[in-house]
């Protein structure tokens, strides 16, 4: 059927319908290109001089159900105190945040602030994406923060991450299970040999109980969790000087780990978070975990503080052949991106989260179940920190803290190290062969 000419159409388009269509097609293609290339290039509300400044904050605190209500309340309190600053929280899972931030930085779209931890902080600092914070930290503030925490956030002599919460790993022991196994609950294992004896006793008394809960997953967090154990054997699979997985110390560590697997003292595979519910059911005797374990256990089984302290204790890592205890602080830090256009406002929020009494009392020491980075806490904060667990962390465990060689090499090295460890735990592969293969892979990736 032939359509009648459209009386509304322009005379030109009526005369040259093909040219008109061709123009539309080219125009559409151009629009697609512009949309693809120019996305995100427009101004947003945050740059509006008349309204409040909007700070974007990438974090996992609002992504986790246990911490979300508390941190949202802290944000609301901050906004009430600072009506000229609005916080736009971006909830990202802990395991995804580093890769998302690297990609966003590369595409020129990072948030203003992010919550980071462990290797992720230094790895991101190595990209040059983070803003130095030294200009914001005066002497008084610097003196009020733990020196080790400031050191953990320093990269190439610049403070790039401000400590938010301390969360070192400690050696938790279940006093009830120890008593049932005929062990003295007031004397947790102080050496690896004592730990071996204790695990044997636990296994014999309660075969269904996991004697030692340790994260052996193949991820950077997994290697961080095992770093202190390696070091107490005098082993470091790699350093700034290169791969060192072919040393007798590393072999001794692997032999001990193999013995744990052969005796069913550990369970390979679960993340540390998957052990926590079992710990709450008295199914774990010893556990290498952060201080947030207390909050998870009490939330799971409804224990009171008194019941918890009667059941669980925490102390330093049993010492190995090296004769030293170690711990790694898996605390959270706050970083500011160099591309942020509102660095003053961003810093105001960072300082509030890390040092204000409201944030510490209602988040850090409450739902965050961590410790503030303060060197000399006062008032209500000091009162809340006065518990057996917090005291053990502050007085015994934190002084043993060591910092793994975080950075690009760590990001590349965790896979060979943890894959090798998993082979030790789940197969009968020769220890020398696994150590040699790990060493070769490390030599390749750590350079």
């Amino acid at each position, binding site marked *: 059927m032939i359509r009648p000419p459209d009386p509304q159409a322009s005379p030109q388009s009526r005369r040259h319908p093909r040219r008109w269509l061709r123009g539309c097609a080219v125009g559409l293609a151009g629009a697609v290109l512009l949309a693809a290339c120019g996305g995100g290039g427009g101004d947003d509300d945050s740059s509006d001089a008349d309204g409040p400044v909007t700070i974007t904050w990438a974090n996992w605190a609002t992504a986790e159900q246990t911490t979300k209500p508390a941190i949202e309340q802290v944000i609301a309190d901050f906004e009430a105190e600072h009506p000229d600053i609005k916080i736009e929280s971006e909830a990202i899972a802990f395991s995804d945040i580093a890769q998302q931030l690297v990609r966003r930085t590369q595409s020129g779209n990072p948030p203003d602030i992010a919550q980071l931890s462990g290797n992720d902080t230094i790895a991101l600092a190595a*990209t040059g994406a983070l803003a130095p914070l030294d200009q914001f930290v005066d002497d008084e503030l610097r003196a009020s923060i733990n020196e080790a925490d400031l050191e953990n956030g320093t990269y190439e002599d610049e403070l790039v991450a401000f400590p938010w919460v301390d969360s070192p790993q400690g050696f938790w022991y279940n006093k009830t299970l120890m008593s049932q196994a005929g062990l003295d609950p007031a004397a947790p294992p102080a050496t690896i040999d004592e730990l071996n004896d204790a695990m044997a006793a636990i296994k014999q008394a309660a075969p269904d109980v996991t004697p030692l809960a340790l994260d052996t997953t193949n991820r950077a967090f997994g290697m961080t969790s095992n770093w202190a154990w390696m070091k107490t054997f005098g082993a470091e699979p790699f350093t700034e000087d290169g791969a060192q997985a072919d040393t007798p110390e590393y072999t001794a560590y692997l032999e001990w780990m193999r013995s744990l697997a052969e005796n069913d003292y550990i369970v390979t595979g679960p993340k540390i978070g998957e052990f926590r519910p079992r710990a709450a059911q008295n199914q774990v005797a010893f556990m290498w975990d952060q201080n947030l374990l207390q909050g998870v256990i009490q939330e799971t089984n409804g224990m009171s503080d008194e019941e918890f302290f009667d059941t669980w204790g925490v102390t330093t890592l049993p010492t190995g052949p090296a004769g030293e205890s170690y711990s790694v602080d898996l605390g959270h830090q706050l970083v500011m991106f160099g591309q942020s256009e509102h660095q003053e406002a961003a810093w105001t929020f960072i300082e509030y989260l890390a040092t204000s009494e409201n944030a510490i009392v209602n988040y850090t020491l409450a739902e965050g179940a961590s410790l503030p980075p303060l060197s000399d806490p006062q008032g209500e904060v000091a009162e809340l920190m006065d518990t057996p667990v917090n005291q053990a962390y502050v007085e015994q465990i934190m002084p043993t803290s060591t910092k793994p060689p975080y950075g690009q090499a760590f990001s590349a090295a965790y896979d060979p190290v943890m894959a090798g460890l998993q082979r030790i735990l789940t197969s009968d592969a020769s220890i020398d062969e696994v150590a040699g293969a790990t060493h070769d892979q490390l030599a*390749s990736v750590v350079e």
Partner: protein
Amino acid sequence: MSGASSTRRFSRKRGPEHRPWLDWMVLPGLVAVGLVIAYPVVRTFQLATTDYNALSGMDPRPVGAENFQKLVDDPIFWEALRNTAVYTFGSVAVSALLGVLLALLTENLVGRSRILKTLLLTPWAVPFVVVAFLFRYMFDEQTGVVNAVLLQTGVIDEAVPWLVSSTWALPAVVAANVWTQTPFFFLVFSAALAAVPNEVIEAARVDRTRGWTMAYRIKLPYLRNAALVASLLMVISNFNDFAKIWAMTEGGPGYASTTFVVWVYRLAFTSFDLGYSSAIGVVWLVLLMVFAIAYVRLLRREA
């Protein structure tokens, strides 16, 4: 007007006519394809010839074929290649076999019993991540139903750590994949069986062909093309499957269930070694393309 000229005019009106301006209508599509497909592929080939780690803060450094040389010498590459082949072809072989068996067994269902066919298709509708977690719990060493059943029936003496065993992790993941993929083959083979000409079946019956002989000699040859197409689709799907493996084992323990896609993910998104991971991506792409071309040629020859 002569009859011949009338016919020519008619042909010009109704027949295929080349309209050059219509070619321009393809432009937006081409631009879109160029942006979302061609650019990443070209960029991957380019990055594969560089030493580039996104965490280094440095620009990519050209290294020629160094990444490919490293790949050949890398034992993980060969382990990942073997695992990818086992996962891909093992899943397809078992799923296709089960699919054809189920299709033959349910071919003659009538009435309400046909609901069984619908039930058999349900695993196909379950999201892959849900399947992965379902099987993760089923294969749990302590609480999983698989160990419970095998222990109860005396098949095994002690619980098997399926997903954290260097021996059993990959077969366990293949089992989960077979469960979710069999309905697809069942659907394809059921449709193909329905298309077998009645005359052929009747003729075979006249010749007193029954049971296994009927299935093997008469029906199965008609399923060949369907099997080829379905297998190709599933081979490509399995080759690229990430969700199930990652959710069940994350490629472990060690590298026992690490396939190409899992390895590339680790290298690219946790170690940020974009140069080396791009080289693996190139090999992966080439392998898939070679396989797909060979398959399509085979299909044409069969046709």
